[in-house]
């Protein structure tokens, strides 16, 4: 072990890191004392913003009469493109106008905004606009877009081997189409921002955003100001899940524009229905696949076209669809593969980042294929999966990265197979299904292999700012944002560990672009990997200076100095940490440092279609049991066992929370959460009254989650692994178990089941199988 690498130490030798400490805001949350954007006390004169939404799906704005809006009670200003002093756009691709100018491309697009004394007045006034739109026929579905060849970006593919020859030569072939639904984030706190104008055109924006730096950039662009005039601050979000990355920009920029125009503090908190209408969602896909395989279920060739509905603009679709492709093989070695993708334009809200970022869609397709192959060969689906896993000799992905540790997943699966009692339960379930004509049960065990790193290389960087004050208390700031995942807690643990002080000496502070500039979004599960490293670097630098000072002062050598329990042990003397801090100040030792980290060893050449986009893989597997009623389609998840690899966890309690929450969110995506756009492009499921996320009684009462406690082989912070996104894909086990239950109706046939597997779809699938 290199002298400085405490990362391989066991949890027992660590004082704070790896301990299951509570979320730093837990005590505030249970009292309702944690402040979100809408809880910030409004200064006198604060105004409220409400957007006006397009009633048409596609067309040219013929007239937009805003006089009745202006005349409404309480209205102070109405914002149109003419009010934008800078650039009327929120996107790098310049295709997401802040306020629609001339044309609308989806129903609900913002066509103006009202600023009024109260939120209620603003919202009422927004309804009074007289809009005439010359409507054009919208492109709504994946099929429409394919027929019109409408795309937001060019097609892209990668390939290994000769899939066409391999398909032709394969013993068996199957093909199919799988529709994969999108998903609304449904963060409990909707989009919100509060902008406060300052002197000389300065603007402070409090925003519920995962990407303060990007919002700073957008606001500066909209206002035509240098970035240095704009500060964005985010203390916490009431959930985000990817939905507050680019999608927070419009709310933040409208609030800032309103503040600029009125010179008053302005708040915009979206109404929930508006939030559903105007913010992007998970991409829905249609995966068209063909697979060739042998009698044992070993895959010889896989050809898949991932048709993604990107919506009306580019947004994050390049990364999302690329990530779907990166995960289209999941954990499997596919000797001959063609992974093709289409990035389709539709006149629907622009789809965006959502936990997993395309990975879930790519993965669901191949897992569905595994079940199809198992059903065709009559083999156990787990055996088919195992027969296709990466192994030491067959470990190159379709994008050229070598999987260096396939043994981790293989042994994880074996452990879960044993601990979930998979084989015995399969036998029991088979026996049950023999004699139960109406209630059918199903069981499935599916793996997850998720690549960690941003595939956009420059985002793999982070900064942190650490101050030690003369009383020994520590101020911690970094570019990551807190959305409930516990990032702030984990990074504070790292800093407390470094200084050998109690966790509560570290004061966690709101993310702020004035403290740590040019940060990356908190996304790609990389929050603690990146910010933990940056904060550790900052703390180490300060600690190094304190050590250098102490060696002189106490005539010691650096290796005689230890920081532990709030004390600094120097040879046989002990000095309290605060005292050493005070001495350092008196002796002009700088106790502040900005730390920086960039992920090493990653590169991706998109044009050449090869590289190493990921620093490492996070692994996991889930075993889910379900029961369905073949007469109604009603279904229930009855038991779930999960074994997940979080490396050497920074905080096992928070990580287990991420796994449970991610799994349940994935289960919602695959079972009850259905986005329905009607024939006119109107989102029919526009609120939680019509869009169903899982509730406490939907979650299996028998829910067993364990961590595979093995250090990451890559040199990450304390050898932990990212845990934000990968668990969402564990829920594929639920979908697969539903297929299994349906399959028992007629084992001679293939099951047709799109996602989400709603009761209607399950019923339809069951009916189709019952037809002789």
């Amino acid at each position: 072990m290199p002298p400085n690498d405490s990362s391989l130490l066991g949890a027992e030798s660590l004082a704070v890191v790896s301990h299951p400490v509570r979320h730093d805001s837990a005590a505030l949350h249970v009292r309702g004392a944690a402040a979100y954007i809408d809880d910030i006390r409004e200064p006198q004169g604060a105004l409220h913003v409400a957007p006006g939404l397009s009633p048409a799906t596609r067309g040219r704005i013929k007239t937009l009469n805003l006089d009745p809006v202006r005349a409404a009670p309480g209205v102070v200003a109405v914002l149109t493109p003419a009010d934008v002093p800078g650039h009327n756009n929120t996107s790098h691709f310049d295709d997401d106008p802040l306020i629609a100018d001339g044309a609308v491309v989806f129903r609900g697009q913002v066509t103006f905004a009202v600023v009024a004394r109260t939120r209620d007045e603003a919202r009422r006034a927004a309804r009074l606009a007289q809009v005439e739109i010359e409507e054009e026929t919208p492109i709504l579905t994946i099929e429409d877009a394919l027929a019109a060849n409408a795309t937001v970006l060019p097609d892209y593919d990668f390939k290994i081997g000769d899939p066409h020859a391999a398909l032709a030569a394969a013993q068996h072939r199957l093909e199919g189409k799988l529709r994969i639904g999108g998903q609304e984030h449904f963060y409990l706190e909707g989009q919100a921002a509060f902008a406060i104008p300052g002197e000389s055109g300065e603007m402070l924006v409090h925003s519920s955003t995962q990407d303060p730096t990007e919002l700073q950039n957008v606001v500066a662009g909209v206002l035509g100001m240098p970035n240095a005039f704009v500060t964005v601050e985010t203390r916490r979000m009431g959930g985000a899940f990817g939905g507050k990355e680019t999608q927070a920009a419009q709310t933040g920029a409208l609030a800032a524009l309103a503040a600029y125009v009125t010179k008053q503090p302005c708040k915009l908190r979206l109404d929930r229905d508006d939030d559903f209408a105007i913010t992007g969602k998970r991409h829905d896909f249609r995966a068209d696949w063909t697979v060739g395989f042998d009698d044992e279920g070993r895959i010889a060739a896989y050809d898949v076209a991932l048709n993604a509905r990107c919506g009306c603009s580019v947004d994050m679709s390049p990364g999302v669809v690329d990530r779907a492709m990166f995960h289209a093989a999941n954990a499997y070695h596919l000797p001959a593969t063609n992974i093709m993708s289409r990035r389709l334009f539709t006149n629907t809200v622009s789809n965006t980042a959502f936990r997993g970022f395309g990975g879930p869609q790519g993965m669901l397709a191949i897992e569905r294929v595994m079940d199809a192959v198992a059903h065709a060969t009559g083999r156990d689906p787990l055996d088919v999966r195992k027969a296709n896993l990466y192994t030491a000799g067959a470990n190159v992905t379709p994008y050229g990265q070598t999987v260096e540790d396939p043994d981790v997943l293989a042994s994880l699966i074996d452990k879960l197979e044993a601990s979930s009692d998979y084989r015995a339960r399969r036998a029991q379930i088979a026996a049950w299904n023999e004699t139960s004509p109406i209630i059918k049960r199903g069981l499935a065990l599916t793996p997850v292999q998720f690549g960690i790193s941003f595939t956009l290389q420059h985002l793999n960087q982070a900064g942190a700012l650490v101050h030690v004050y003369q009383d020994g208390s520590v101020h911690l700031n970094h570019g990551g944002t807190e959305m409930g995942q516990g990032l702030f807690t984990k990074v504070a643990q790292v800093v407390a560990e470094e200084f050998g002080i109690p966790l509560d000496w570290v004061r966690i502070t709101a993310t702020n672009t004035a403290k740590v500039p040019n940060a990356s979004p908190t996304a790609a599960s990389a929050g603690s990997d990146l910010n933990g490293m940056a904060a550790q670097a900052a703390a180490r630098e300060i600690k190094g200076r304190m050590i250098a000072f102490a060696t002189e002062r106490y005539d010691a050598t650096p290796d005689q100095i230890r920081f532990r329990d709030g004390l600094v042990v120097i040879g046989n003397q002990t000095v309290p940490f605060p005292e050493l801090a005070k001495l350092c100040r008196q002796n002009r030792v700088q106790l502040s440092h900005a730390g920086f980290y960039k992920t090493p060893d990653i590169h991706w050449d998109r044009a050449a279609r090869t590289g190493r986009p990921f620093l490492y893989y996070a692994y996991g597997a889930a075993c889910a049991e379900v029961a369905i009623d073949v007469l109604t389609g009603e279904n229930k998840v009855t038991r779930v066992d999960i074994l997940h690899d979080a490396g050497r966890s920074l905080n096992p309690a928070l990580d287990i929370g991420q796994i449970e929450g991610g799994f349940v969110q994935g289960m919602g995506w695959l079972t009850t959460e259905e986005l329905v756009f009607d024939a006119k492009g109107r989102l029919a499921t526009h609120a939680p009254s019509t869009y169903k996320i899982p509730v406490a009684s939907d979650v299996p009462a028998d829910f067993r989650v364990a961590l595979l406690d093995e250090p990451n082989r890559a040199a990450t912070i304390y050898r932990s692994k990212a845990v934000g996104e990968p668990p969402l894909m564990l829920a594929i086990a639920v979908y697969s178990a539903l297929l299994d239950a349906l399959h028992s109706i007629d084992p001679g046939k293939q099951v047709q089941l799109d996602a989400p597997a709603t009761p209607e779809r399950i019923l339809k699938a069951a009916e189709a199988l019952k037809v002789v």
Partner: protein
Amino acid sequence: MFDPRPIKLTVNGKTIEATVEPRVHLADFLRKQLALTGTHLGCEHGVCGACTVLVNGATARACLMLAVQADGCAVETIESVASADGTLHPIQAALSRHHGLQCGYCTPGVVMTLLELQRESAGSALPEDKIRTALSGNLCRCTGYQGMVDAALEILG
């Protein structure tokens, strides 16, 4: 628009006399006029449960009830649950101990739902399915509910 109307109610034991517009819902009244921002707004149409408060001891969705309807009522919000000296109520302590929260936005509503359940149960042990059913009016997008259910079982089970 209708003229503002006077109302008199108790909020967290304190008598409040106020004038409110008839269309203002109880949550806005609590949050804006009384600065009790622990009652959160998630959907504003009665589905998510983030705004759950107790009105005359029973859970109510503060976004679905008008402030004028609370005239004469006793309203309890999350701010009243811990003791004045800051000691957490056992339900709050258990939620924190069992990591039954992440972003915390749903948490106040969850506490109020469990508080009603605790008072109703009057000390008799509740089975898990009863707890899950009671909690199913409180949407949580982060946790998967396990920590919440564990906390509730410790106190009410």
